[in-house]
């Protein structure tokens, strides 16, 4: 087996904002440019480009990958767009890992872009078209309702209260205050979160991530190239992804099995046997406050139903035992779907290099995990990165 080691050698992103004046192509290019500017690599030295982007309906462009390709730097290069709904941002990096690890390419740029503001008056209308056209769309479901269902099931199964979940919003929006690209950093209390409007019980407005425009990019290189262009490579130690059935109504929503399977795929590759001890920093997907806790359990970083208690004990704070979402996450930095997942990997890159500035977690973290989730509460994508070379 000829698997090669692959390192992340650069990261960059645009500011996440409610409405960007840039076109989708320009957003993608700004992210690629800043990722390339963070190392010595030039675009012409990049062998292939991977794009991640969620539904075409947001941008209102059919075959969005083709439209975006030159903005992503894919001109006259092997270029493709991969796609697993909301899980795309982390998956796209796994896709590029595959492409470099296979030996087909030595360097890759991964860029994830989303421009939701062009979908008027609100992208929620586009989300109606993600449901089964025969059995579900006639019911006119929306995302808030189905995630309210999942949150209720999670709370009911483990006896969790809304207050415990509101703490996630407080922590992440506070962390985002230190992120220069953040859209919704804020200093809040649990009372503020619970006083905000109920969107669909038990989901309050401040427990929901915003809609955003933005892009994020990372640069991957084989060991040989990485050694040449940087003295601080961050190694991709493991990747994993898992897609569950489309029949989400038949699934027990209390626990994300697909995240567990994706996590173990990545941990096995990384040689991680006891995730709770061997992972120093986590960036789980937090489009809704309860999702962060739900995903921490799926990622084996908290026992089932115990994540809220660990959060209340301060374990997940930036200076806690296991810092979780030091970036501010989707709740704080913003949620341009695919770009949000890649933003989490950018954060791990900066944290592991010790370059996260005011957001830097103490204690020189050596290994981190980022995870994204999407589709009909259906897909888990996981990447484990660290300062040590994988075996």
């Amino acid at each position, binding site marked *: 087996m000829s698997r090669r080691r692959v390192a992340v050698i650069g990261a960059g992103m645009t500011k996440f904002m409610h409405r960007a004046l840039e076109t989708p192509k320009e957003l993608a290019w700004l992210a690629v440019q800043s990722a390339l500017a963070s190392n010595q690599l030039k675009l012409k030295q990049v062998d292939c480009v991977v794009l991640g982007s969620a*539904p075409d309906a947001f941008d209102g462009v059919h075959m969005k990958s*083709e439209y975006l390709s030159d903005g992503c730097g894919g001109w006259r290069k*092997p270029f*493709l767009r991969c796609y697993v709904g909301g899980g795309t941002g982390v998956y796209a990096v796994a896709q590029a890992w595959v492409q470099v*690890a*296979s030996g087909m390419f030595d360097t890759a740029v991964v860029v994830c872009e989303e421009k939701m503001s062009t979908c008027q008056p609100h992208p929620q209308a586009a989300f109606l*078209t993600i449901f089964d056209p025969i059995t579900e769309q006639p019911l006119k479901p929306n995302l808030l309702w189905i995630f309210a269902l999942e949150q209720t099931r999670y709370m009911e199964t483990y006896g969790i209260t809304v207050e415990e979940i509101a703490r996630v919003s407080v922590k992440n929006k506070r962390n985002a205050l230190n992120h220069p690209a953040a859209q919704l950093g804020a200093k809040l209390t649990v009372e503020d979160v619970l006083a905000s409007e109920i969107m669909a019980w038990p989901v309050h407005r401040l427990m929901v991530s915003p809609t955003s425009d933005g892009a994020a990019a990372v640069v991957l290189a084989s060991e040989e190239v990485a050694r040449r262009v940087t003295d601080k490579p961050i190694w991709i130690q493991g990747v994993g992804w898992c897609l569950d059935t489309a029949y989400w109504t038949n699934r027990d929503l209390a626990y994300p099995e697909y995240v567990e399977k994706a996590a173990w795929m990545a941990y096995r590759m990384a040689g991680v046997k006891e995730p709770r001890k061997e992972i120093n920093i986590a960036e789980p997907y937090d489009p809704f406050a309860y999702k962060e806790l739900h995903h921490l359990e799926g990622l084996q970083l908290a026992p089932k139903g115990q994540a809220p208690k660990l959060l209340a004990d301060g374990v997940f704070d930036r200076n806690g035992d296991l810092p979780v979402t030091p970036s501010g996450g989707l709740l704080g930095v913003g949620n341009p779907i695919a770009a949000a997942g890649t933003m989490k990997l950018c954060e791990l890159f900066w944290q592991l290099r010790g370059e996260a500035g005011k957001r830097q977690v103490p204690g020189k973290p050596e290994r981190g995990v980022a995870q994204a989730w999407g*589709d009909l509460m259906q897909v888990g994508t996981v990447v484990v990165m660290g300062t040590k070379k994988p075996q």
Partner: protein
Amino acid sequence: MSERVAIIGIGFTKLQPATPLCSFKELVFEAAQKAYADAGIRFTAIDSFVTCAEDLNEGISIFDEYTPDQLGAVQKPMHTLTQDGLHGIADALMQIRSGIAETVVVEAHSKASNILTPDWLLDYALDPVYNRPLDFSPHAIAALEMNRFLTQTGITVSHCAEVVIKNRLNARRNPLAAYPLETDPTTELAPYLCYPLREKELAKNADGCVVVVLANEAGASKARNQPAWILGTSFASDSPTLESRHWSNAEYARLAAQAAYRQAGIKDPGKIDFFEVDDTYAYKELQHVIALGLYDDPVKAGRAIETGETRPEGRIPVNVSGGALGMGLPLEASGLYRIVELVLQLRGQAGERQLSRAKIGLAQSWRGVPTTSGAVVILGSEPPHV
């Protein structure tokens, strides 16, 4: 780069203008069952799955939600590429070479008959700021390109008409084809779609599904049927922007082919026995064989169609299957139907259209207007030297 990868199973449905009696899931299920039986494996033995699909063609956003069940991919690694099926083959090959999977399935399908307004949908593929407000048919891009291509190369409109007749006659010997030539062969009298492009030079959409099973060397040695080895594969994109693209050469095909030839150690593409190339528009077949490097002078591609060189009995058979003009254009599955033809020919299972010499074949795809993206896959009946 040492791991050898082969196609060990293919499953497909007949291409049809419409499939009112089944859903896309049923099409996929049928192709998957056939592919797994062809490979002699159970779905539980597959490590990873890839679907190639576009949201707007499916009429469902985040279409990858609906991909796993009918393939047996539930709770397995699975993702979607919004690319042609041949990109999926390249992806599967890279997954196997990276050691992350030993057996990978690639699926692509078309339920084009569900699209009530295909031209209007294609309009949404145009740049929303610079091009869409001009309110022109996207086929006009192909017509512009054809005009430029004919002027630059000296190839004529009657050469393009000959391509239509050749491919649709070939399709008469392909039981999978949706549009074999039945009566009137005079394409030149057909009405114009956009000058100089005539209506009959545009491939018509068709419904269908292909599932392909790929495996590493160990998997290939246990396959029920003769494996088709991947000798080379690559993909490339040129400028999507109309204002800055090359209007005569298919750069994407040239770049992808060169990379694939390098991997396969092929110096003279004339050594390849047969070709299945994109012919969404008749002139595209000629443009693509030129980009593949088959002729030192482009005008020779036109002469070749006059002399019958690219017919099944000729020196360089192109689109023996009938191509998209004869078989129909199954959207993202187009490339995989070419893979089906390659595998059948390499195995000697192509029935009455079986070529006498079929040891190495090449499939090439293009993603249609207004794109400049495509991929190339070279398959051989003998494993590559490493």
